């Protein structure tokens, strides 16, 4: 990290005499390339850097963020954070002085086999041109694009009692999307249009089968355009991993965030149907449901060594055999709630304070083979790739729509249907989980844009999931 020595030296120089003080420096470089309708759009790059100072003193808490890391800039930020800590004393939701903040030391770095910069701009644009060129199969395809986004971050976390953590990440977000139209019908099919992401370099393209996606999604968009509308019926629902991630995210991840349960999010992202007394015994899902917080899978977007308050991260079961056992809550929330949690206090960047976030929240694989799951379904539907998502503020009544639906009749996958949607209630939906696919069906997908918090923050999260089957789900189509 280019500025590491300078920042450490300056922090030492201006460190205030307070109970707790930390400095979190973040440097992020990103580049986005897109070819739309076989024309390259101008490359866009970003270089962001800045730091957040946190001060805890006599029960009060204060944050100040600045992109000026001169000695004077640091002094100003510390002074502002101290001022907040002093003026918020006795007005805060908890006595922050009573919380033991971590002072850990350590490092984390993404596993990168083929760094973004190892391939020229021209070659990367060529790759996108090749995908784009495969998309326009006929004149019903009105729009299409292929894109790549790479993000590289470096982070340094220092505390006034010797905490020192260095973490560097590299992420890749590839996508291809196609719009097909006939009259008043428009269908959209994509690879990652709402945001897929993985940790790593350009080797991710090979692992995820990016090459050839242009032709595949274009063919599928045309199939959808010609398909009948999804029927309105209660039936078995098979969700493959790229829709399971949304289901996990919205109806398990957000409800078990401890800050939501403690009420912090009630004015914006919402509350939760989960309450503090449920942990340890509440039947969240069927006994087939096992959910983990797992920061150790190298390709998942939110693998890291430590959270943004310096807490070491490790794999932890949150739901075991259907029983809710632990929330997603970092150091501060754990202290407020008196519950054990995980290392998930994370900030979107240098200019926002950490809050409880999902990280890698995964459904563990089961025993069922994909073919056996299909064979076991008399009347059902398989849905792929999220298109629409909506859920109430307690994270209970949800309605999700997918790009792709395919009926399952008498144990066989049959016709493709368009505009597939389903609705349910989180508190009962997971109890109807009747089959969990084995490790062969498991896939990892990242979501780079989970929104939450006041002030608002978007953050990268990830989910690994096998294919799953739910019984008696309300399925319906469009107008």
């Amino acid at each position: 990290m280019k500025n590491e020595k300078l920042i450490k030296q300056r922090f030492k120089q201006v460190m205030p005499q307070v109970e707790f003080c930390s400095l979190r420096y973040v440097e992020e470089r990103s580049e986005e390339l897109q070819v739309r309708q076989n024309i390259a759009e101008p490359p866009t790059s970003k270089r962001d850097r800045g730091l957040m100072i946190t001060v805890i003193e006599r029960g009060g808490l204060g944050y100040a963020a600045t992109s000026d890391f001169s000695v004077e800039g640091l002094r100003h930020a510390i002074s502002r954070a101290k001022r907040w800590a002093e003026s918020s004393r006795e007005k805060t939701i908890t006595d922050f002085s009573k919380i033991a903040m971590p002072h850990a030391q350590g490092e984390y770095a993404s596993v990168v086999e083929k760094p973004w910069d190892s391939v020229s701009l021209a070659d990367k644009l060529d790759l996108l041109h090749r995908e784009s060129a495969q998309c326009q199969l006929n004149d019903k395809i009105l729009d299409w694009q292929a894109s790549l986004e790479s993000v590289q971050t470096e982070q340094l976390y220092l505390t006034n009692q010797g905490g020192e953590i260095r973490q560097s990440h590299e992420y890749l977000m590839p996508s291809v999307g196609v719009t097909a139209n006939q009259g008043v019908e428009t269908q959209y099919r994509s690879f990652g249009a709402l945001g897929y992401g993985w940790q790593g370099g350009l080797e991710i393209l090979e692992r995820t089968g990016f090459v050839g996606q242009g032709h595949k999604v274009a063919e599928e968009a045309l199939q959808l355009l010609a398909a009948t509308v999804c029927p309105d019926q209660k039936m078995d629902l098979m969700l493959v991993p790229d829709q399971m991630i949304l289901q996990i995210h919205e109806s398990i991840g957000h409800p078990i965030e401890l800050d939501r349960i403690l009420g912090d999010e009630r004015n914006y992202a919402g509350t939760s149907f989960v309450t503090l007394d449920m942990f340890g015994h509440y039947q969240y899902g069927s006994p087939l449901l096992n959910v983990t917080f797992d920061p150790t899978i190298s390709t998942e977007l939110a693998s890291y060594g430590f959270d943004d308050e310096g807490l070491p991260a490790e794999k932890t079961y949150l739901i075991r055999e259907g029983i809710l056992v632990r929330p997603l809550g970092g150091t501060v929330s754990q202290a407020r709630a008196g519950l054990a949690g995980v290392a998930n206090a994370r900030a979107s960047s240098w200019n926002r304070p950490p809050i409880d976030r999902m990280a890698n929240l995964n459904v563990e694989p089961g025993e069922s083979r994909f073919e056996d799951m299909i064979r076991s379904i008399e009347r059902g539907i398989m849905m792929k790739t999220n298109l629409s998502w909506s859920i109430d503020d307690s994270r209970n009544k949800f309605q999700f729509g997918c790009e792709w639906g395919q009926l399952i009749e008498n144990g066989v996958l049959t016709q493709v249907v368009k505009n597939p949607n389903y609705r349910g209630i989180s508190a009962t939906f997971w109890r109807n989980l009747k089959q969990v696919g084995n490790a062969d069906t498991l896939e990892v997908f990242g979501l780079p844009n989970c929104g939450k918090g006041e002030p608002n923050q978007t953050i990268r999260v990830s989910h690994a999931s096998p294919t799953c089957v739910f019984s008696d789900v309300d399925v319906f189509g469009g107008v």
Partner: protein
Amino acid sequence: MQDYFYVLADFIDQQLQNDEVYLCELIAEQSDFIRFNKGKVRQPSSVEQRYLEIDLIKGQRHTRGQLALSGNTSSDYEQVKDLLSALRDQLRDSPEDPYLLYATEVQSTESINLNPLPEPEEALTITEAIQGHDFVGLYAAGGLFTGFANSLGQRNWHSHHSFNLDWSFYHDTDKAVKSAYAGFKWEQATFQERITQSLAQLEWMKQSPRTIEPGQYRVYLAPTALYDIINLLGWGGFGLKAQRTKDSPLLRMLEEPAQHLHPSINLIENTAKGLAPGFQSEGFIKPAQVPLITSGVYKSALISPRSAKEYKVETNGANEDESPNSLDLAPGDLQQDQILKALDTGIYINNLWYLNYSDRAACRITGMTRFASFWVENGEIKAPLNVMRFDETLYNMLGKKLIALTAERAFLMETDTYEVRSTGSTRLPGALIDGFTFTL
């Protein structure tokens, strides 16, 4: 901040080589945020950030880069030089862009509205006014600064100091009322009045809630609820690119036989009466108004310079994503004191939540009721409503099932703080609608 930006722009001018052209935009803020929960302070913070985006152009080739600046001119000069050098390297491998279009007629503008805002200690006295209540929300305040400059000598500046306190008072579980106090000059008496109104409304939430069966109901959408529907339409509804690629949720207003909304629907992008800058990142000046829907019929689109070039039409200064910033829906004639009587028996909805399309091409929208929504019988509020999911097309809601719009309108300053504090705003009435479909 303005002088600092103009000095930087002059510096970029000096760094250009040969026949290079640049466009640049500064987006900066100096903000205080106080996050509240249960009437106490959860997270107080200050943020100073300055982002500069440069579009370096040579002929038809161009490439863009964004920097976080420190505010110190000397170190920022070095960063700008590094960025220009990197952009120059990229230009060599960047193909020509046939849709590049930027303003060549120099039109410099300035809009400044700077007011003193509460210091941290003063802002924290909010906790005194709401003592004893379950108050949760965010106070966001400070200066917002947007600047544009190009190598042709154009300079544009837009800055204002504003505050936005967005809060909820909770009674129990999800039973709450939501309110806001936003503006440019904090007035304690006005704030106190809003708190009193909000607490009075909370009393209604203390009654036993009513659960209704899925079905069709007569509803009144307060401006804060209708805002969520209008705001969702901004996601691809009004841009030329979405129209031409048939991706617009308003597709059925555009294709023959065209569907229309109720003749009382008149929607404009009203930049002149909004809070967002009147210029955009390619240097075009936005017209005072762009009519989007007139008498229920689709009128015109928001057209970015890129779409203008691609589809061979004139730009109307839309931002790159062609989304609106200052929507304005014309009022109707339903008087405020007649709303409950006109609703008769049905649901009074103050807020909606988490809207999305369940069939985008048909503009069928789903979402939830949230906060203060009430069951009304014979023109009287009877009970708070347990949350319900709706799923309804725009052509029903604001078309054949629209009964009336209110004569009084609300001016809503956006509370969005993703990356930067929003300068968006919306002016709109409430809507009385028959046969609104609830599904779950």
